[in-house]
């Protein structure tokens, strides 16, 4: 496993011997490569279709679905709706300046919450995983079992209790109570640890113990072993946990809408839904807001993509 962990994202199967066939016939091209291109192109079309569509909706100044794609275009003609016809940044301006539904506040909240939770939770889970993987203590096995069991009980299921606890919290500590992003952050922190610790422990187990043992001989403290050796070697899984946690928190809807119900101070997931739910059908504003909201996730994805393949599989394989 550690062998593959050091490789970057695989772009080929690698192990096949080269066949000396510089030019192949068209028929052979179709049976070996051509059909693959055909499937890939269909998949690319399907993947990009909604994305192109939303870009068009966001650029159309009228801001409704029927304006972005006039109803008289039917059949294949409707596909031209994927190409923007009427380009304007009006929706982007409007969504950024909507004082009743402050997009910039949502954006800042979502980003703060997701970053704070992802960083803290990754660090704390790494600490926990280190203890479970490298140290021997009473209660280690029951502790691991408890972690596995806790994974089956997502916080979503305890939302009623969380709401009650946070109501009490609001009375005693209003700074971290209902309606504050800090309240949401600490709740999320409680939820993400159980899931991540176990995943990381699986990866830590694949790092040879001999490495930290020889460091210990050299006189390195456990703090040094953990921070400078283990964390460095476990970089792929740290990145994956960071990415998965960030994504999860950024997308989270149920707890966020319960703890931050006020549209003036909520998250993107809760806020953007309000543009197109109920009687409201402001698709142009929604599309502009959603596309901007996608940027943080795409950026973090771009940075972590290299590690995703190894990290996602490795953690699970050594469960």
């Amino acid at each position: 496993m550690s062998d593959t962990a050091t490789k970057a994202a695989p772009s080929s199967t690698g192990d096949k011997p080269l066949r000396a066939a510089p030019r192949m016939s068209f028929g052979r091209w179709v049976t070996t490569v051509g059909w693959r291109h055909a499937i890939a192109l269909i998949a690319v079309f399907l993947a990009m279709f909604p994305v192109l569509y939303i870009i068009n909706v966001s650029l159309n100044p009228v801001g409704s679905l029927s304006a972005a794609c006039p109803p008289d275009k039917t059949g294949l003609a409707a596909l031209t709706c994927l190409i923007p016809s009427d380009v304007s940044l009006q929706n982007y301006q409007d969504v950024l300046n909507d004082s009743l539904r402050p997009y910039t506040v949502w954006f800042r909240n979502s980003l703060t919450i997701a970053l704070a939770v992802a960083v803290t939770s990754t660090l704390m889970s790494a600490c926990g995983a280190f203890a479970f993987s490298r140290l021997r203590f009473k209660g280690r096995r029951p502790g691991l079992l408890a972690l596995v069991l806790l994974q089956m009980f997502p916080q979503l299921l305890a939302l009623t209790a969380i709401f009650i606890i946070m109501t009490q919290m609001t009375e005693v500590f209003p700074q971290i109570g209902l309606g504050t992003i800090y309240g949401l952050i600490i709740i999320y922190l409680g939820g993400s640890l159980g899931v991540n610790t176990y995943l990381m422990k699986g990866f830590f187990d694949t790092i040879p113990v001999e490495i930290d043992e020889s460091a210990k001989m050299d006189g390195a403290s456990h703090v040094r072993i953990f921070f400078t050796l283990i964390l460095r070697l476990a970089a792929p899984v740290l990145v994956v946990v960071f990415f998965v946690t960030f994504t999860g928190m950024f997308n989270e809807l149920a707890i966020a809408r319960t703890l931050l119900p006020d549209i003036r101070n909520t998250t993107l997931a809760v806020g953007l839904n309000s543009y197109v739910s109920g009687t409201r059908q402001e698709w142009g504003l929604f599309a502009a807001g959603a596309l901007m909201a996608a940027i943080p996730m795409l950026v973090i994805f771009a940075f972590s993509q290299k590690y995703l393949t190894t990290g996602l599989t490795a953690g699970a394989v050594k469960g």
Partner: protein
Amino acid sequence: MSTSSLTEGKARTRAFPSGSLQVWLLKLIVLGLIDALGIWAVAKAYAAGWWVAVAFLAVVLVALNVVYFQKGALPWKYLVPGLIFLIAFQLYPAGYTFGISFTNYGTGHLIDKERATVAIISQNTRPVEGAASIPVRPIESGGTVSMLITDPATGQVYIGTSVSLEPVTDATLQDGVAVSVPGYNTLNLGQLASNPDYDQQWRDLAVPYDPEKGFYIQQSSPTRGSVVYSNLAFDPETGTFTDVETGVVFSPNGDVGLYTTDQFDPDAKSGTPPSAEKSAANRGQFLTPGWPVFVGLENYTQVLTDPGVRQNFIPILIWSFVFAIGTVIMQFAAGLLMAVVFQERKMRGQKIYRGILIIPYALPIFMTALVWRGMLNRDFGIINQIIGQPIWWLGDPTLAKVSLLVVNLWIGYSYFFIVVTGALTAIPGDLKEAAFVDGASGFTAFRTVVLPLLMVAVSPLLIASFSFNFNNYTLVTLLTDGGPFAGSPIDGGATDLLITYTYRLAFGTAEQFLAFASAISMLIFVIVAGVSAYGFRLTKKLEEIKA
């Protein structure tokens, strides 16, 4: 950062396993700050009477100091920070949910018996015509709000609570009106407005003035009160309410958490979930609000045996399974297909293809799910424009289910594409070569050799994906919100998962079925844990076959 690099150098030369002076000082400062914060928090929680928090914070403080100020206890040094959050916001809520599921907690049973009693009095009053306005002040002591009353006729000052009206002599007067009294804080308008609990207490406070006849003093503003009339007279001695007009006695009924008459029949129930309060037979036989009481397994037995509830619950349970299993199979199959398609070195442009195909996975779900909702719109959606038919994708029960599965396939298959690609690289090349070269024999090799190896690698992820999608609240809420609905949303919709149904029971309507929702939450937990355990057993078997 600078201290750690400093100590790093020291540790290297001196090779001390337990760190140096700077580290120790830093530790002292950080822990000192945490202790100070913690003691402040304990004091606040104590003042508010939140005993669970007091106990938890005290244990945390002791544990932090014991663990970090001693040598050794190494595992705990790494575990304690995470454990604190895990216990406070995961374990405790889980246990709390379990506890609630055995009660009747919810609308009408949200406050304790004492508060309910006060609320019954104050909610059943009406103003007395011609009653004089009385100068009052809200005062607070130990988290309980009382009323400081100045009799406008005599100038006598009283402290009024929900059960008593006691004269006092040491109050501070201002223009003949008592404004404060030793031992209490006088609350001003701002303090009331910023503290919902105090505000509620103040509004609910009805001070017995002549309770036998049904007269109470109630606030009408933070500085004025007046005498009000209630036909319900509360007797603190017997703890019962008497209707002063009819003479009917309501006594506390611990089985249902209500003040009830003798005629109240706890077994006469109606509504979904059924409750005695909704039964026509019990109309007028009880007072609201009530308080939460232990009802044993009632919530669970209702889910499993009550015909009205089962009629809603069973289809939702089945659909939750179909959705979760269907999603996992479809996403995995599509991910596998794409991974296999790219198992050919001669194919060009792989990097570009991959980069584009992964995009749906990297986009926020609130964006993709809602875009699909727009595209599937019956009248203005692009899908219907391409087809040329006004198909009501999200309004027809079956089509809505199909739409949900297809959209989830679109959103999630690239996750399995990534994972399967990764897992395939881990499988030895000579095994794969046979599988990916030729037609029929290649397929057989793939099925008999590569696929089993692959399944061993990805089955934990399949199980995780099942439990994630079984509880995929976000997607369902954004795409269909559980609908379409045949009747009232509280009875569940065609695409409701157990989790969206549960959320609606708890928070979705004016009436909150919190205890009942908690019981369903526990059932979801049991189902997911059971399926996962079964899945892991299967994986073990797979591994043995392989070995």
